[in-house]
Each structure stands twice: as structure tokens, then as C-alpha cells.
């Protein structure tokens, strides 16, 4: 049994792993775990990840969760090109720094905007209040400013002149609000250029393929969600978007 990756491409961290593995020709079996159908809550998947979240990896009897851990594991096991996680101590530290900071910032705020704009109205049946949208958009913009000023600065990529895991992780997260209809690249030319370069580095076609689902997310309707999940999702969402 080879490497298995348990993924749903609607999820940002799943996309970074999918793109990284495919871009580096890492052989794996794609195990589709459809979140909207509640497949992450089955007993079978629980054996792979007791925390019932995607992405997850299974390599023989070894299981692993958390996209950053998975990306690093793949980079090490398959000895991917150095620039993904540079051996230079300081460049590596830059990648670590971003990967750490992003959890509650880019990832946190990008997710929040997506959940608030797309999923919440869908699950509650209530229209989205303009104040709420403005507030989550503002929160995202604050971290986008920090991203540009502190992490990207005048460099082409976060770690310097070459693309790394940090850029990939950042970009897939930023595509989530884009999928919600908020084109954050429109008025940020530096970010737009950075995006173009990251897409080119991983392969434009692969990038677009990975994002096909999320870019259609606006068309999601409540009937696509497993009925027994509706209450559970709603409860979770209300907590996450408060």
C-alpha cells in the first residue's frame, strides 16, 4: 500500500498538499473525503484521523494530520528541490515564520470571510448583514497589509528569490475569499504579481485544476449538504464567524 492523501479540494490546506505533491510528481492515491457529504465524520475516516479533519496522510501504518506537517514530511521523504524548504538556516526560518503566523491571520481571516459570505447564509437561511461583511472584510485587509509589509516586502517571494512552501500555503488560503466573490487581488498589484509568479512556479494548469471547485463555491446550495449535517455545520459556523 502506497502513500494515501485524504483530501477535499474545497479545503485550502488540502489544495496546498495536492498541488505540492502533483507539482513534484510524488506518487499518491487521492482519497476523496467529501466534506459536504460528511465523509470526514465516518468511522472509517476516524481511523485515519481521530480529529476528523482533512487533510490527512497515510503512509503504511503511519498517519499524519495538519497540512504543514504533511507538506514538510513529503518534502523530506521525497527530497523535493531545496527552494521549497531551503536548507539555508535564515531562509528556512522565514518560511517557518510565515507558516506559523498564517494560522490565525491569513488563514483565520480568509476562512472567516468565506464562511461568513458563503456558508453562513446558506445554512441559516438568513441574508448576510452588510455590517458583518464589512467587518470581516476589514479584518482580512488588515492581515493582507501585514502580509505585504512584513512577509512579502519588495521580494518576489516570501523567502526571497524563489518560491517556497510559504508562498503555496499563502496563496491557496487567499483563493478562499476569492471563491467567495471577494477579489482581493484587484486593488493590490504587488499581490497580483506575486500570485502570477506562484501559479507559474507550480504550473498554471495544475493550479487552476485544484481551484476549480472553490471558484464555483458561490453556486453552492443547501441541498448539496447532507441533511443530517446541516445542524452540526450551522452550530460550528456560528461559533467560527462570531
Amino acid at each position, binding site marked *: 500500500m502506497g502513500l494515501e492523501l485524504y483530501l477535499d479540494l474545497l479545503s485550502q490546506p488540502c489544495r496546498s498538499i495536492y498541488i505540492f505533491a502533483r507539482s513534484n510528481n510524488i506518487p499518491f492515491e487521492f482519497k476523496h473525503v467529501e466534506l459536504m457529504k460528511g465523509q470526514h465524520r465516518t468511522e472509517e475516516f476516524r481511523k485515519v484521523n*481521530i480529529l476528523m479533519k482533512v487533510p490527512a496522510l497515510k503512509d503504511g501504518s503511519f498517519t499524519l494530520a*495538519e497540512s504543514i506537517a*504533511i507538506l514538510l*514530511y513529503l518534502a523530506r521523504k521525497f527530497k523535493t528541490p531545496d527552494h521549497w524548504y531551503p536548507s539555508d538556516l535564515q531562509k528556512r*526560518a522565514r518560511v517557518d*515564520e510565515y507558516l506559523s503566523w498564517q494560522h490565525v491571520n491569513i488563514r483565520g481571516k480568509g476562512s472567516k470571510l468565506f464562511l461568513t459570505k458563503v456558508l453562513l447564509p446558506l445554512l441559516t437561511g438568513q441574508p448576510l448583514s452588510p455590517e458583518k461583511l464589512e467587518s470581516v472584510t476589514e479584518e482580512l485587509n488588515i492581515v493582507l497589509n501585514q502580509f505585504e509589509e512584513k512577509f512579502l516586502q519588495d521580494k518576489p517571494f516570501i523567502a526571497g528569490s524563489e518560491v517556497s512552501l510559504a508562498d503555496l500555503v499563502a496563496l491557496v488560503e487567499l483563493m478562499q475569499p476569492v471563491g467567495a466573490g471577494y477579489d482581493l487581488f484587484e486593488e493590490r498589484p504587488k499581490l497580483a504579481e506575486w500570485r502570477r509568479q506562484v501559479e507559474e512556479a507550480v504550473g498554471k494548469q495544475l493550479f487552476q485544476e485544484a481551484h476549480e471547485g472553490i471558484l464555483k463555491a458561490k453556486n453552492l446550495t443547501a441541498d448539496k449538504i447532507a441533511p443530517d449535517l446541516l445542524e452540526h455545520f450551522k452550530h460550528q459556523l456560528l461559533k467560527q464567524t462570531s
Partner: protein
Amino acid sequence: MLNSLCSSETNKQEDNFAPCVYKPVGFSVAFRHDTILARQPHLQTAGKLLCFGPSNSEGAGKVRLLKKVPALKDGDFTLAECTAILLYLSRKYNTPDHWYPSDIQKRAQVDEYLSWHHANIRANAPKTMWIKVLIPLFTGQPLPSEKLQEVMEGLSTSLKQFEERFLQDKAFIIGSEISLADLVAIVELMQPVGVGCDIFEDRPRLMEWRRRVEDAVGKELFFQAHEMILSVKELSNIQIDPALKEQLAPVLMKMLK
């Protein structure tokens, strides 16, 4: 106001280019594991210089655009985020393998915990301190008990997951030896303890793990690093400048969300 004690520690064989870590002693949780790691004997003999400076001083401000602690400065190189700093220190100073094992599966387990930690343990544990001590200190008002209850419930869920997924029946997160994962977890969990929410009380397995971590790190060093957190309640008696209160109260309330 979160007044930082300044202490500096130099080794006789001080290297002029040794990294300088800016952080106030006491309040920033993230700094404590840096201190604990850095004070392991082999790092001292490598001629490390650690200087603690006020967190919002100009020097520290230049170091960190985001104006947060901890931060590291090594010559011209500056670095934020405790995970990044811990990894940088362990690589630069070749700390013993168990801290961040070379075995890729054990290493992955450390990475897994360090990643999960942010949105889980770290999301709730510090809030106990904000709710019980710091916010009432700055706003002059206690917070409704539901707020603390909410946080404790969240923390309880995270602790259950911690025991089920990360610790299980092992001595430490990766197995038989302590690693950065245990260190990062324990310092965060000492915060509720410091404000009287003893999360170890009804959790014997966690309590045993804590004892092992303290022993592995060195009891004296562990308690030294946690001195201020464990007496944080005494802060409640301090008088704060009203102008500062007004300025910081809304910021602190936002941090609760």
C-alpha cells in the same frame, strides 16, 4: 505597563554575533519555551547571549514590524513567531536530537502538534488569563462568568483531543523523549494554572505528563520561567494609569474574540 524586568545573561565566552532575543520576562507565553530551550546547558556553553528588553522599546520595535514578542535578532537577521525561533535556535546550536528528531516520522509528529496548537490550545488557554486578571485590571470590571465558562469548555475540548491524538499512552508527544511539541504545549497550559483554573487537577494522565516534562526540562528552570505567570493574580492589586486603561481596554476586549 506590562512591565518587563530586564535581565541579561552573558557567558564568559560571549560571541559578539550571538543572537539577541527580545522579550519581556513573564507575560508573553511564547517566550517561556524559548528561555527554557535556550538555557539548556549546551546552549550556554555555545556562548549565547540572551538579552531581555522592554517589549515596546524602540529597539524591539525596529526588530518587529508587528510589535509583538517574542522576537529574535541575530546580527542583521530578525525573526518573529516562537515556532520559527525555536526551530532556528535548535538548528543553529545543534541541540540534542530529541527536541526536533531527525527521524522524519517523529519530526512530522512534532510539526503536527506545533501546527495544531495555534488554533486549539493557544486559542483558549491564554484567554483564561485575560478574562480573570488582565481585562478586569484594565477595564476595572470583572467579566461575566459565562465568558470564562465558554473558554474553559473550548479548552476542555482541546485537552481531550490533545490526550486522544497527541499524547495517547506515550510518555511524551513523540514517544519516550521530550521534544519542542511538549515544551510549547506545557507553557501554554500553565496560564490557566496561574489564574486558578487548574486544568491538570482532574486529568491524571496530563498531570503525569506535566511532571515528566518538568523533570526533563529541569524543575528549577521550569519554575523560574513560570514565576510571574504563577503569581499573576498579584497583578490585580496594581494601579494602572487611567489614560493607559482607556487606551488598552478596547484592544484587550477585542483579543477575547
